[in-house]
């Protein structure tokens, strides 16, 4: 089937479909797997056999009231403001930029006559630089901050490279730095590798962030407090 196909044609053709299929099916697999490993929280509710339990007198001392600013200072945002800010901006830019970059939408329009709205090129370029800067921040943090270095392995550096490579190569391609044909090929390949890596590497924290934060019931659940617990 691929006998006459060049590497370039393979990377810009079938591999795109393979990458999206692996990404979508892999993510669905992870979500379904989570639902099989968990159950609705109602099943853990305590049943009282003989009416309501007597209400115990509340003798605990009143908790001190905190201002909203004190709450923020005590939260992870207040304790690690730089890291939380950088990681939030990095992840938002990482997800949104590829969706709204002009080049991708032109390709979509050519293929399907439909596309998402596009960001001005300068804005997309700025967001790309934000992702690259965030990647450099995480890299330096991993090398120079004791507590991060203590739990870092070669795998962490590879995952960071997988996540940022599409943006580094995209930046190089947009600015026509180095040989364009090679760089754009590497850009496509890097994007495809990242998509395929999401469900099966540490990048699985992408879907699991939402599962852990909004679906699983635990002390730090956001939103409505979650609906499921592990079996």
């Amino acid at each position, binding site marked *: 089937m691929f006998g006459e196909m060049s590497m370039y044609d393979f990377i810009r053709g079938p591999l795109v479909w393979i990458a999206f299929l692996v990404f979508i099916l892999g993510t669905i697999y992870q979500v379904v*797997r*989570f639902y099989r*490993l968990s159950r609705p929280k109602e099943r853990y509710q305590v049943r009282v056999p003989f009416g309501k339990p007597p209400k115990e007198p509340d003798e605990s001392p009143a908790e001190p009231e905190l201002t909203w600013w004190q709450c923020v200072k005590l939260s*992870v945002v207040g*304790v*690690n403001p730089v*890291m*939380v800010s950088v*990681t939030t901006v990095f992840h938002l830019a990482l997800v949104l930029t590829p969706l709204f970059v002009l080049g991708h939408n032109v390709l979509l329009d050519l293929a399907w006559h439909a596309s998402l709205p596009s960001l001005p090129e300068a804005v997309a370029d700025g967001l790309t630089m934000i992702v690259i800067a965030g990647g450099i921040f995480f890299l330096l943090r991993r090398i120079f*901050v*004791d*507590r*991060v*270095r*203590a*739990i*870092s*392995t070669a795998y*962490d550096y590879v995952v960071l490279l997988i996540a940022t490579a599409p943006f580094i190569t995209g930046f190089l391609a947009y600015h026509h730095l180095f040989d364009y044909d090679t760089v754009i090929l590497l850009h496509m390949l890097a994007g495809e590798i990242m998509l395929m890596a999401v469900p099966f*590497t*540490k990048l*699985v*924290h992408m879907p*699991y*962030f939402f*599962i*852990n*934060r909004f679906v*699983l019931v*635990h002390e*730090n*659940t956001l939103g409505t407090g979650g609906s499921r617990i*592990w*079996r």
Partner: protein
Amino acid sequence: MSSNSQAPINHEEVRQMLDHHQDKMKTALRVCAHCSLCADSCFLYHVHDKDPRYMPSHKVINSLGKLYKKKGKIDRAGFEEISEIVWRRCVLCTRCYCPLGIDIPEMIAFARSICRSQDVYFQWSDLEQPAE
């Protein structure tokens, strides 16, 4: 930290315990982004001058993570090291915070269960007595 027994580790029993919870525990280990944001939520980390070994993720990776990585094939000395982590470096106060929502205390508790199954556990008599 002690073993009550010098019997060899029953690797089959350890492997069965690991297998029984592997989907959930391996998922949690994989989801951990090694970001270290859990560090400041541990009072022992602060008490020990921010020694990274007291960071919740460091404790999980080097106890339960190690057990899964080696498929339970760890000798008694290795189990002693793990028990040092899960009892002496963690009091299971359940105050640790993970931005990705990983249930760190549950993982430490599971590592303790595996240690106990091999007769490796914390003994209060091992504690250094304060000077008179």
